[in-house]
């Protein structure tokens, strides 16, 4: 366990150096999207109304945190890996080193975790300032980390599989963007017709948003959704592990 952690940080060193070099732009870009969502949805569209029995701001902030964990976790890992694989060939160097495959998978997800947590932290601080309904608890932080982890693992997979940046852009548009709006993050999906609801019920963001909202607002603990998010983490991790093991990158 300690060895895994140690190796993970060794793998992540290069990416962390990159982030430190570009700290300012990392910080700014982590802030822009969440704040836009908050302004557009929280104030522009629904100000004053309520959703799910709470003030809309309290409803939407956990959803935006889930979105940030998804976009930041996914895009920072997938893009970094794609560039390192195809343009720098430096991904090969990782493979050449005496570290376990799990450490490589975890290490490559660290950028996504850091950026996801950064975006989430910014959003959470805003949320705490704007409403009293959101409760900061250790559980909430754990759940945010889990969500960032799930989407970072997904980003690692996309980064390993994609063979050009067009593919990544396509995944962003065809998978992430619909999830952003359809997964109950910004508004309740209760009014959707049955089949659509069922499809949405299978998507990871639906559950990560559900978990974060329930925990943040002190609703009943969403064990089922937590299980689904954890299952996505495990599935993406296994896929990443296999891809590297089989030399499919």
């Amino acid at each position: 366990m300690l060895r895994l952690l140690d190796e993970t940080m060794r793998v992540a060193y290069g990416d962390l150096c990159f982030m430190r070099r570009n700290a300012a732009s990392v910080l700014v870009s982590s802030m822009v999207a969440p704040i836009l969502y908050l302004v557009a949805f929280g104030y522009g569209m629904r100000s004053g109304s309520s959703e799910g029995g709470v003030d809309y701001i309290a409803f939407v902030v956990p959803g935006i945190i889930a979105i940030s964990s998804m976009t930041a976790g996914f895009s920072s890992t997938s893009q970094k890996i794609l560039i390192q694989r195809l343009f720098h060939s430096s991904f090969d160097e990782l493979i050449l080193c005496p570290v376990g495959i799990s450490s490589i998978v975890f290490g490559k997800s660290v950028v996504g975790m850091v950026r996801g947590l950064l975006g989430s932290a910014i959003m959470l601080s805003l949320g705490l300032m704007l409403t009293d309904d959101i409760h900061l608890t250790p559980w909430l932080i754990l759940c945010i980390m889990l969500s960032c982890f799930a989407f970072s693992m997904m980003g690692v997979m996309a980064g390993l599989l994609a063979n050009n940046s067009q593919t990544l852009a396509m995944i962003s548009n065809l998978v992430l963007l619909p999830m952003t709006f359809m997964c109950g993050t910004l508004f309740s999906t209760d009014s959707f017709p049955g089949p659509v609801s069922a499809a949405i019920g299978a998507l990871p963001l639906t559950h990560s948003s559900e978990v974060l909202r329930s925990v943040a607002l002190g609703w009943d603990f969403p064990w089922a959704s937590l299980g689904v998010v954890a299952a996505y983490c495990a599935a993406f991790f296994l896929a990443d592990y296999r891809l590297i093991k089989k030399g499919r990158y």
Partner: protein
Amino acid sequence: MEEHIISAEHLTKRYGDLLAVDDLSIGVRKGEIFGFLGPNGAGKTTTIRMLTTMTPPTSGTVSIAGHDSVREYREARGSIGVIQQHNSLDKDISVRENIVHHALMQNMKRSEIRKRVEELCGAMGLEDRMDSLVEDLSGGWKKRVSIVCSMMHRPPVLFMDEPTTGLDTQSRNALWALIKKLNGEGATIFLTTHYISEAEALCDRIGIINKGRMIALGTSDELRGRIGVVTVERQNADGTTDNAYFGGRAEAKAHMQGLPEDANVSIRRTSLEDVFLELTGRKL
């Protein structure tokens, strides 16, 4: 049986219909400098990638320092250093960050890394560029950084895929000296090159690969013996040459006697280049 520090049995790599490496077996002895020669596309890089655990073979096995490259990949990777043919540094971070990252990945300690960086960067003249972004370096400088990276953890086995391609004369000499020094300290070195003189100057044994198959293997003298150590070279009027190879001077002289008086012929020791061209085909 002889102990081999690098040993490959029946290595085969297929890319779709293309047989990039075809049933290749190699044994490299501990402490030797092994040269791998072959025309473009012969399968040198593919072989190195399989020997270094980067590409899983379609079939066949590799063992490095006694560790199976698939089952014990971690141990196998810990005992090798690799300079890849194409630059494989992270261009978004600095020279120092690349080197430190590499050393960390090899489980080195910070204090140890600091000392080793000074030592190697001194040898490759990199001191003034440590904080440049790799992106901003010229090709030869990047190569030098890769060389330093591969040697940081003092690997007992070093693979170098065309390490001197693109280097200026000074760095090439420095690298040759470094290779000899490391080898003197006990490192085994597996290198590919397109410079036949380099293979001849550095390598204890040379393997020649063509179209994925190992077609000759031995010391440079043994390879000369394969085609004949004496060459009679005849210059034709149209600028082409015809070579004939003989096991000894007497036979060669006899052959010359049989040629027309006015033929433009010379007799010389067979070069490794003759061997290479003879075995891999003179034409593209």
